[in-house]
């Protein structure tokens, strides 16, 4: 599938900021399921973008700008061709030992209720792959998607207790349960092409689990499926904190207002796709 993404994040400050410092994980990498045709990262003010790589192998940009800054617009834009790999991630250089993805984090700490849930969801399954599929459907079934129930600091346990949350909460619950089963699991941030609308106000998030003999496999509890060609994979980490597209600090600057607009669609003309591929 040919996917075009235009991801705009705008910060406005009622009192201008003196300095802005952001970590951007907004540049996708190639793997067998996605081919980056073109991609650019830009901002609308004078500043610096320095590309590095974090320990998980994500492309990380350090962005810094001097004030006074009353607004910043950060733009990530490009074309990607995706392929359905049935959720299997191949063709990616793995940077760290799989066992490291068993670490728990503040957002993915196991609790007795989550242990019970994991046990009930997976007790009839013997292999890790089937356990993950059972977790996937159980989380999808018991959780209600609700944009207003949680924030970026909500833990897996909190959203699970309220049975409400957004895709990142669903992903955190999956990670918590999978790790409890001793299955290495990681958080994935990215994009999802919807059928109904092409303007979204948030990216997407799901999980990947390491299954012996198969490797890393994606699981999206928000949709109850493994990722297909409608998914674009951006960054991975132990949880949202390590993979968030934008993480930043400002010096000075009050009354911050943030607005995210993601225009994501698939140009349907097959000729376009062909053109892009031979570029």
């Amino acid at each position: 599938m040919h996917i075009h993404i235009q991801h705009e994040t705008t910060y406005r400050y009622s009192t201008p900021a003196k300095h802005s410092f952001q970590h951007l994980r907004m540049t996708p990498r190639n793997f067998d399921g996605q081919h980056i045709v073109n991609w650019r990262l830009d901002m609308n003010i004078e500043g610096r973008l320095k590309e590095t790589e974090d320990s998980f192998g994500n492309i990380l940009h350090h962005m810094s700008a001097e004030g006074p800054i009353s607004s910043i617009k950060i733009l990530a834009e490009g074309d990607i061709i995706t392929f359905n790999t049935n959720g299997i991630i191949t063709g990616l250089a793995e940077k760290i030992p799989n066992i490291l993805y068993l670490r728990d984090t503040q957002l993915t700490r196991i609790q007795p209720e989550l242990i019970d849930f994991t046990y009930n969801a997976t007790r009839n399954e013997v292999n890790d792959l089937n356990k993950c599929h059972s977790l996937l459907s159980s989380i999808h079934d018991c959780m209600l998607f609700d944009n207003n129930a949680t924030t970026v600091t909500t833990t897996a346990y909190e959203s699970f207790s309220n049975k409400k949350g957004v895709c990142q909460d669903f992903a955190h619950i999956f990670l918590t349960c999978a790790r409890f089963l001793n299955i290495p699991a990681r958080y994935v941030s990215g994009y999802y092409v919807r059928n109904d609308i092409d303007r979204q106000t948030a990216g997407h998030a799901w999980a990947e689990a390491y299954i012996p003999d198969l490797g890393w496999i994606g699981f999206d509890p928000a949709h109850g499926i493994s990722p297909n060609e409608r998914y674009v994979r951006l960054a991975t980490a132990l949880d949202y904190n390590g993979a968030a597209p934008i993480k930043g600090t400002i010096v000075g600057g009050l009354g911050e207002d943030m607005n995210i607009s993601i225009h994501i669609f698939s140009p349907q003309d097959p000729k376009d796709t062909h053109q892009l591929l031979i570029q």
Partner: protein
Amino acid sequence: MLQFDEMMGANGQPRVAYQNLSQWLNSVDAQWLSSRREQAELLFRRIGITFAVYGSQEATERLIPFDVLPRIISRNEWERLERGLIQRVTALNLFLKDIYGDGQIIKAGIIPADLIYRNPGFCSEMFGRRPPHDVYVHISGVDIVRTDDQNFYVLEDNARTPSGVSYMLENREVMMRLFPELFSLHRVAPIEDYPNELLATLRSVSPPHAAGEPVIALMTPGQYNSAFYEHSFLADKLGIELVEGRDLFVRDDIVYMRTTEGPRRVDVIYRRIDDDFLDPLVFRADSALGVAGLMGAYQAGNVTLANAVGTGVADDKATYTYMPEIIRFYLGEAPILLNVPTYRCREADALTYVLEHLSELVVKEVNGSGGYGMLVGPHASKAQIEEFRLKLRANPDNFIAQPTLALSTCPISVAQGIAPRHVDLRPFVLHGAKNVRVVPGGLTRVAMTENSLVVNSSQGGGTKDTWVIDDVLTEIRPTIS
């Protein structure tokens, strides 16, 4: 349990190293010694050396009890300790370099992978990175106890941000003022050089761009930290700036400090702030103590942090149990200092044993420090033991247990005269780019209550000056009439 007293031998005679002190003690009267004790307290109050105790409501700032009798270690004993310390810290450093790189020790099957990679002290952000000169543990404060005339045991390696060195230095200063005559009876190895040695260590590990005259700063969490006195004391002694996170900023992966003459580039940061608070962009986002972008500058190789980020995995109590293997693996040597035999409660057999012998064992949380969250079986009430039994059953991985060692005692001065009390020793080891060194001495911590084994200052422990002496110089000649 027979206790080893460092001054008095089993025959009731003082040991060689203590002969002069013992005779001197016989020659002074109790009242005079008492008055010196009071003077010492006055001096410490004047210096303003205090220690904040977390969780104690009535007094946040407390004076650590000081005992006026020196703890003496002979040159012979010290040389063995020194070799053991250098060996241990060298191995710790190689261990950290390995586990943040290839992980040879894991591949060799010596340490289980999950003990490293799932360790709360392991820092994912350091994986695949190398700090300047491959030095991780620039400063460590290794806690040592002795049980007899032969054996020294290491209790903890304290490889994160060990404190206490200011007490070592201040104790010596106060002693020299109070007891000049006692110094003239001994050839005491000087420790005053510690600040210079520390400075030389910090200079040696500066990033390549600043090889000549690196700018060094000491970074403190601020005046509410329990060790703030020490931070300002050391900055002053080293002649370097004392900074908080808000005094620093990062531009293009370079760290600067604000000065009255404008921004100044910083090359080495002796940080006395925990990993979690260093950089809100990478670690705790709610940390107001750190500097945004500091980890980026560090990873770009533009600044040295001492100690390196992620050393917590090395002084973790579960890792501790593997220290003998760690030393053999990296150095091919037998460990000079002993490890306390340790039951890893994560192992089923060990857990069973520990649950059956709680009243004889010391049980510690794997990641606890400062004597918090610990059970001293022989001194615990039934209720305390039962409480720990529940904790252990609920989360065995989180605990280790050790037999109670028959810790040595040293004489302290009390109202009634002289009495033996249990002690430990924290020498400070400096690991630079080229060498590892130890200032002869350390901080002796003493359990001020009779029979107590808890020496932590947060739990009412006191300190003593620690003397490494060359040999017995002058005998006190009895006046013959």
